[in-house]
């Protein structure tokens, strides 16, 4: 090919770096995801001498100490899925499609429960609903004069655990449902109305069928969240005397560690997640029209009349559970001499704050690590998501589907499983990263990639590809077009993605718990350690600080126009 004779105004030929850059990204992605998974599979199917065996799975299935956690986990996941739909779907409808007052406030509060670390919620609910010392149970006894043996709630129980997990999983369903409702064009409902459909007919025949896929998808997401959650079960299930799959996997790493069993126990979790995500994809994929954007009329709001105050009360009562009560309990504990007593002049102390910030020698390091990891994971994750989102949205390389698969695959890897896989991968030659922040960085980037990718990819889709083509045909290279045209148009999406990775990282526990060392401790692990020795007041102080940082970042993200809360955060 002769490129030797540029015509009059042609720019000098330049090398296009985009192809090598893209190949490099794909290679890194492969290593990031394929390596830990292959070690998991290898360990799951080999014995200690490295010979192939199915014995690990045989041991799991034969031992009730493994079968029981699996069943309990399924019970939890199904219950949480059902509860979340029953609670969050009506709330999503009230907020998206009715004239209920304070709809924005309700949305904001759900958002707040979205970003609250679930393990922190679990600790707060210990303070509230421990059968004897729980504030709610104390209040119950004080109000009814019941004997000291009686209690209203027992958070250290299977229903208690299901309740707490549901509290912090509900927002996932809420966001999916309310977003779907936001995107159903008012036209569709108007069309039903003009044909004679009353409000109820329209709801039954048009609105509900349209939003049903989102509800089902929400149920699946809730199921997955509940199944893969580590923090809350570790805090609540062990005192209650049972294990879930995640805590069981974790306990397999206690001395003497049984990595082959941990790997074998991780694989069913991984498999189930993959199957469920395929199901979600099938549900949403076939009925994708329900969430199609585009030019549309605003939805008509259903007039609730006097019922609207009842609806508001319903929302606020629901929000008591993930927000008001737990936050109150944490604040109370942070300033109390005894965490189980209501704050009073006699009980007030600043000692806990002094302890956390001046005596606890791990605080400073954990904060530094968390901040460092948050910033770098958010930056690297955003860049990754940006590049991969670009490649797949623009189909810029032939094997873009493979890249898309790799970028979304971590969704199917529960945090604790990823932790096990990463530990197996990076604690041996040639990659000895265990003990450094790098291994945590890899974990956090991997975990945040799917959500970041989905968000940025849809942002890319909203920027018409012809905008880039126009720049290229006028003489810009692919990278130049990306930098000069696409990047400025994507700015809000990029900043929002960055903030959400950051928030997701500082609340991540399940992978971190497998990967930290004393030098690489993060705040979430510090909180978990403090819970082990029962230092609830210190947890409250650290937790409140975490929440303050989180909200600062979320508010920053929300100040950016065009940002909506439809981001999936991972479990912690």
């Amino acid at each position, binding site marked *: 090919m002769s490129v030797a004779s540029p015509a009059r105004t042609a720019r000098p030929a330049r090398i296009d770096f985009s192809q090598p850059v893209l190949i490099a990204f794909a290679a890194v992605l492969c290593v990031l995801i394929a390596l830990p998974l292959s070690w998991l599979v290898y360990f799951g199917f080999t014995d*200690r001498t490295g010979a192939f065996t199915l014995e690990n799975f045989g041991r799991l299935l034969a031992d009730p100490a493994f079968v029981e956690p699996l069943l309990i986990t399924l019970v939890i996941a199904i219950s949480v899925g059902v509860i979340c739909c029953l609670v969050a779907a009506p709330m999503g409808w009230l907020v998206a499609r009715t004239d209920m007052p304070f709809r924005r406030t309700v949305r904001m509060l759900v958002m707040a429960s979205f970003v609250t670390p679930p393990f922190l919620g679990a600790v707060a609910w210990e303070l509230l609903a421990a059968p004897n010392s729980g504030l709610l149970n104390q209040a119950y006894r004080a109000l009814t004069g019941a004997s000291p043996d009686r209690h209203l709630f027992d958070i250290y129980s299977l229903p208690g655990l299901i309740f707490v997990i549901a509290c912090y999983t509900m927002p996932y369903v809420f966001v999916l449902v309310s977003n779907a409702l936001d995107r159903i064009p008012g036209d569709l409902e108007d069309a039903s109305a003009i044909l004679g459909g009353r409000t109820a007919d329209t709801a039954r025949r048009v609105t509900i069928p349209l939003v049903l896929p989102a509800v089902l998808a929400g149920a699946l997401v809730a199921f997955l969240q509940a199944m893969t959650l580590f923090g809350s079960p570790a805090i609540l299930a062990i005192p209650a*005397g049972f294990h879930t799959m995640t805590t069981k996997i974790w306990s397999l790493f206690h001395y*003497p560690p049984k990595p082959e069993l941990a790997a074998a126990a991780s694989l069913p979790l991984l498999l189930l997640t993959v199957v469920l995500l395929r199901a979600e994809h099938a549900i949403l994929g076939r009925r994708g029209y329900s969430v199609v954007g585009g030019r549309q009329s605003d939805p008509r709001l259903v007039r609730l009349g006097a019922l609207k105050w009842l609806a508001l009360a319903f929302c606020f009562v629901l929000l008591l559970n993930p927000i008001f009560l737990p936050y109150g309990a944490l604040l109370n504990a942070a300033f109390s001499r*005894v965490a189980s007593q209501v704050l009073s002049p006699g009980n007030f102390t600043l000692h806990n704050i002094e302890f956390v910030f001046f*005596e606890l020698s791990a605080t400073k390091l954990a904060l530094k690590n968390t901040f460092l990891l948050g910033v770098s994971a958010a930056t690297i994750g955003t860049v990754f998501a940006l590049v991969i989102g670009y490649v797949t949205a623009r189909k810029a390389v032939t094997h873009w589907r493979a890249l898309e698969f790799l970028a979304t695959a971590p969704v199917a890897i529960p945090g604790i499983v990823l932790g096990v896989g990463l530990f197996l991968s990076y604690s041996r030659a040639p990659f000895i990263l265990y003990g450094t922040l790098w291994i945590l960085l890899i974990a956090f980037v991997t975990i945040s990639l799917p959500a970041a990718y989905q968000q940025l990819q849809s942002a890319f889709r909203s920027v018409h590809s012809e905008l880039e083509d126009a720049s290229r045909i006028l003489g810009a290279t692919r990278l130049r077009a990306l930098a000069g045209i696409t990047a400025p148009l994507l700015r809000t999406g990029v900043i929002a993605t960055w903030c959400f990775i950051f928030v997701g990282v500082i609340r991540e526990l399940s992978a971190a718990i497998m990967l930290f060392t004393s030098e690489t401790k993060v705040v979430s692990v510090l909180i978990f*350690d403090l819970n*082990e020795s029962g230092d*609830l007041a210190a947890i409250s102080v650290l937790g409140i600080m975490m929440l303050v940082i989180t909200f600062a970042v979320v508010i920053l993200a929300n100040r950016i126009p065009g940002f909506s809360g439809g981001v999936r955060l991972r479990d912690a």
Partner: protein
Amino acid sequence: MRRRGLSRRDVLKGSTAIAASVFASPIAAAAPEPSSITPALIEAARKEGKIVWYTSVDLPVAEKIARAFEVKFSGVAARVERSGAERVFQRIGQEYGSRIHAVDVVNSSDAAHFIVWKRDGWLAPFVPEDVARHYPPEHKDPDGTFATWRAWLSVIGYNTKLVKPEEAPKSFADLLDPKWVGKIVKAHPSYSGTILTATYQMARDLGWDYFEKLAKQRVMQVQSSADPPKKLALGERAIMADGNEYNLFLLKESGQPVEIVYPTEGTPLIVGPNGVFRDAPNPNAARLFQSWMFTNEAQQLMVEIGGLRSFHALVKEKPGRKPLREIKLMKDDPVAVERESEAIKARYTQYFRV
């Protein structure tokens, strides 16, 4: 995960039969000369600037000791890495397996760990002056790699608001009374070295059927031995079946409604040695810390503010606390704990389901 760690344990199983006692190694004693705190050592420690102490002692106690050290030797920061002894052990094994040498000085509530670390050659022989002069021989390693820094008991406790003294249990056997169903909190031997050690002694002296019956009392299962006393103080449970005596001292002395019971069958004694790691990243600061930790001053401080017990000859017990010699103790046996820890944890999990 390191298969190395596994095989080490496997090898151990066969070889521990010859070991007699943790402090009486069959190998000829070869402890180095005692070292005192010299200005040169302090200067070298200041150059390193910090020391990392892995410990399982209750966090506020650990941090107070560390702060006292920092006040005494300004310019050397002492960082506490606190978690349950079994997790400390697992962590060090995991870190050393990946050639990560982060720990300078270690303190564990499971004395058996020191047998393993010493055998693996991970501990540095180093004898502080005070250990040589003031410690009984049964509380120091003949090879000078560790010595008992602290001792305490795993006791029964109760909340005085919820249980009248006359109704309180007097013995472990009393805990099996149906009236305590759902009212007991206890810690877990897979996390806590204190509880592992105590579980060994109790299973030996009382039989495993005690635990089998106790498991039917619907106990609240927490992890660290520091947690049951705190659950008592919160009023979350009326009785604790095991847990740290020193936490109860501290809570009681700060006015919390808790009381200690020394069971009639005998109380498990726990010793928590301190040792310096051979590959300590801050070797001089580690030696300075180790030396200071065994001084009369530090030991007295540990007793006063930590509620712990010391074997330092010059340390005085705090008035109001029951002196150790008046308490009927169960005999500690780290070698046996080391040998049986895996079996103990497995059997415990079988009864208590977690």
